[in-house]
Structures are given as C-alpha cells and as structure tokens.
C-alpha cells in the first residue's frame, strides 16, 4: 500500500541552526501539507502546497519556514534558524486532490521529531 515517508525520524539541533525535513508523498497525489504537533498539544496546520506553490499557510508559518518540491518526488520543510519552541513532531501529508466522491482525507507520514536545544 502506498504511503508517505518522512526523514529523518528524529533530529536534534542547536538553537539557531537550519533544519530540513524531508518527505516523499504518495506518487499520484497532487496536494502536499505540513502539520506539526508540539508535545501534549493538538496537531496544527502549517502549510499546503499545490502546483509548485504555497496555496495556504497558517500564522505559524512565518519567514523562518519555507517549503520546496525540488525534484518532483521530495517535498521539504526548511526552518532557517530554529528556536526552542520549534521542537515538535512534524507531519507531512498528501492528498489526491481532484477526485470527486472521495472522503477528503489526508494521508499522513509517520512524522519527524525535531528537538531544538
């Protein structure tokens, strides 16, 4: 069964360092997303991406964040200068946008845990 894969599963970094989280969405999906979950809190929307551009972003997704689909298969989230409060589990998701009669579901990866020290 096709799945969304994410790397790394866990990354520890120093405050102020740049981090890139990688995702390989399901191959025939058209919409891509990043969500995050700070420990003990709810899963929060960060950004959606379609047709090589951001379609929607939340207030969390400030100038320190960027997304890219560099090669047609990978979808990356970059945090330019990490802060302590960026420590969270980051989930990539994809969906087969454009299918009618579907459930509207997102397919999530297993997550990348980011720890900022």
């Amino acid at each position, binding site marked *: 069964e096709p799945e*969304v894969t994410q790397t790394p599963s866990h990354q520890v970094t120093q405050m102020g360092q740049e981090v890139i989280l990688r995702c390989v969405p399901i191959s025939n999906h058209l*919409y891509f*997303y990043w*969500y995050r979950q700070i420990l003990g*809190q*709810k*899963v*929060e*929307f960060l950004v*959606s991406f379609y047709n090589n551009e951001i379609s*929607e972003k*939340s207030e969390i997704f400030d100038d320190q964040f960027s997304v890219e689909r560099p090669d047609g298969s990978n979808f990356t989230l970059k945090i330019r200068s990490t802060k302590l409060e960026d420590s969270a589990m980051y*989930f990539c*998701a994809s*969906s087969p*946008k454009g299918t009618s009669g579907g*459930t*509207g*579901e*997102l*397919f*999530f*990866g*297993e*997550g990348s845990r980011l720890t900022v020290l």
Partner: protein
Amino acid sequence: DQQVKQNSPSLSVQEGRISILNCDYTNSMFDYFLWYKKYPAEGPTFLISISSIKDKNEDGRFTVFLNKSAKHLSLHIVPSQPGDSAVYFCAASPYFGNEKLTFGTGTRLTIIP
C-alpha cells in the same frame, strides 16, 4: 483558540462494549468533519468523515453522528476491540476538499481485554 475541543483526554472501555468519543466545535463555518486515529510513533490515519448535510455516517464498526445545532459530533465504535486502543483526533474544515484541518487535542482510548 480551541475551535475544536475534545474534552475527554482519555477513555477506557471493556472489549466488546461501545466506545463513544465526543467532539465539540465553536466555528460555525466548519462544514466537514473527520476522525483520525493515531498509534504511537505513527502518523494519524483517516477513519471516517461526515459532511454537515448529513447527521450520520457509518462504516463497519465506526459510526459518526453530527448534531449541527449543538456543534457536536461523536464517534461510536462497536464492538470495541483491543486494536482500537489509540489516540483519536476529531478534525474540521470549512468544506469538503479544503484540507486545512483544525484538529482537536485528542482522546486516548484504551480497550480493556
């Protein structure tokens, strides 16, 4: 800003009985609702969804009920099985096809054998 609330952080149910997970929302713009299940060290997986034009949707052991006037939905699992032990998230969006989901904080369901 808790637009989607799951007021029970945990729930324990005997195997074979019914599990009822509840969710309330405050934003009247929400029109489409989903339930996701999450096991440890895995991403959320979709369970079932419902549009606001319906008040019930059923899929096997899982049924979601929507009371739009009360801004309340619930997920019923019957009969409950040990494999149902997980964290369940309620999520909402303004319309079907909008994948900017607003999630609740989750309810940890434990099925007791």
